[in-house]
């Protein structure tokens, strides 16, 4: 009994960062669709879930395989009320792009990573703009898209901090 309970504790301890990672991803998902009066940005909300996708694709891509990103993007699409598959597609694209540039990005300082996140946001908004324009024949004004990119970029350092902590915990547990 002692052996099994201790091995269970070891297992829990080993998988704690992974559990925390996914709990945080779900928190980001719910934040993405919640009405946040603090920000007072109307219906504009920072791209919370994209922050998680970006960070973990860069620092722990094994924890978020492509199918899981697709599923969580699909869940966001169902809950947000827009075109189904749009975020799923964008998250996969962002993840693949980061995976192809991981070595380069990991060698850069924090400021370059931040700018890279901004590039990812602009890329996602551009893809969404094109697809929405193609299928629905209209799109939001450009200033609104620029504002959306700006608030997402500004919110990234704040939302990144817990993910950074989980990543450090992962190495501490290893």
């Amino acid at each position, binding site marked *: 009994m002692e052996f099994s309970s201790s091995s269970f504790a070891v297992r829990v301890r080993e998988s704690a960062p992974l559990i925390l990672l996914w709990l945080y991803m779900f928190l980001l998902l*719910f*934040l*993405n*669709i*919640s*009405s*946040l*009066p*603090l920000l*007072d940005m*109307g*219906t*504009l*909300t920072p*791209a*919370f879930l994209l922050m998680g996708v970006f960070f973990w694709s860069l620092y722990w891509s094994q924890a978020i395989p*492509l*199918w899981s990103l*697709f599923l969580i*993007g*699909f*869940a966001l*699409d*169902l*809950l*947000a*009320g*827009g*075109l*189904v*598959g*749009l975020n*799923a*597609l964008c998250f*996969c*694209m962002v993840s*693949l792009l980061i995976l192809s540039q991981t070595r380069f990005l990991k060698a850069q300082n924090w400021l370059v990573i931040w700018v890279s996140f901004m590039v990812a946001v602009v890329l996602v*908004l551009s893809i*969404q*703009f094109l*697809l*929405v324009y193609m*299928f*629905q*024949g*209209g*799109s*939001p*004004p450009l200033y*609104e*898209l620029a*504002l*959306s990119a700006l608030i997402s970029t500004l919110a990234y350092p704040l939302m990144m901090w817990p993910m950074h902590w989980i990543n450090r915990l992962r190495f501490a547990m290893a």
Partner: protein
Amino acid sequence: MMRSRPRSAPRKTSARVAMMVAQIARYSPFGFLILGFFLVTSSALAPQLWQGPRTAATDLVSPIVSTLSRPFQFVADGIGGMTGINDLRAENDRLKSENDRLREWYQTALLLQAENKSLKDLLNVMPEPSQSYITARVIGDSGSPFVKSLLLTAGSQDGIEDGQAVLGGQGMIGRVIETGRKASRILLLNDINSRVPVVILGSNVKAILAGNNENILDLEHVPPDTLIKSNDAVTTSGHGGLFPQGLPIGQIVKKEDGTLGVRLYSDPASVSYVQIVEKPEDVNTRRSIQTLTTPSSSFEEDGN
């Protein structure tokens, strides 16, 4: 030779499976991209296919989203209360509410004037059935600049139905498009997919109010050579039977390019609570719908 054959066959099979898995893994990124694009296409061409899964997902997570938004509301209220300009806020709120009340009275006066005129013209007209409302809290939004929708904490168990008009503090802001048991989603008037039949008071011109994802909405199918003035009130026309007649929506403004647009009375982005207009419970209306849907039985009844 005879013994080695059964051993090599499973090996070959497992090698084939391994190769197939490797191939799938190799091409899975493209598979997911293709699947994503396929989903987007299906959602754009046949959005009704996804209504069931959307409603179920919304119902499932609405309690979590509702709980999650409460601390933010609480903190926002707390910060607002602690700041030194609290008194100024109170005064401002009082003036705003007074202004809102006066605007409502103004709208009421305009509506009564229009109704009075219509009644004088058509002496025997049957008045619109009285409306009742359901109040619900806004717990979420799309979180995307591409979709203008809100999530409410009321669903079919509270009397919400698809197609009902939704009012903000001062006027209509959208309509219910998805109804779960405990939650529902409304499409805002400024969403690109929104179309509402309206009437411009004063000139009595009928038009279609079209969302464009901007703050000033478009007016479509306005008859040419009609005199429409800025600040004219726009209300629902009641055409099509989906919405009641006379719900205040906004006022006419001239856009920068010289065309006419409509500014909403209620800013959909800033509402915390909304009122959903229940469908009329009028006996005559119900009877006429019944007559239309089951003509044979009603004829029989008439015959008897």
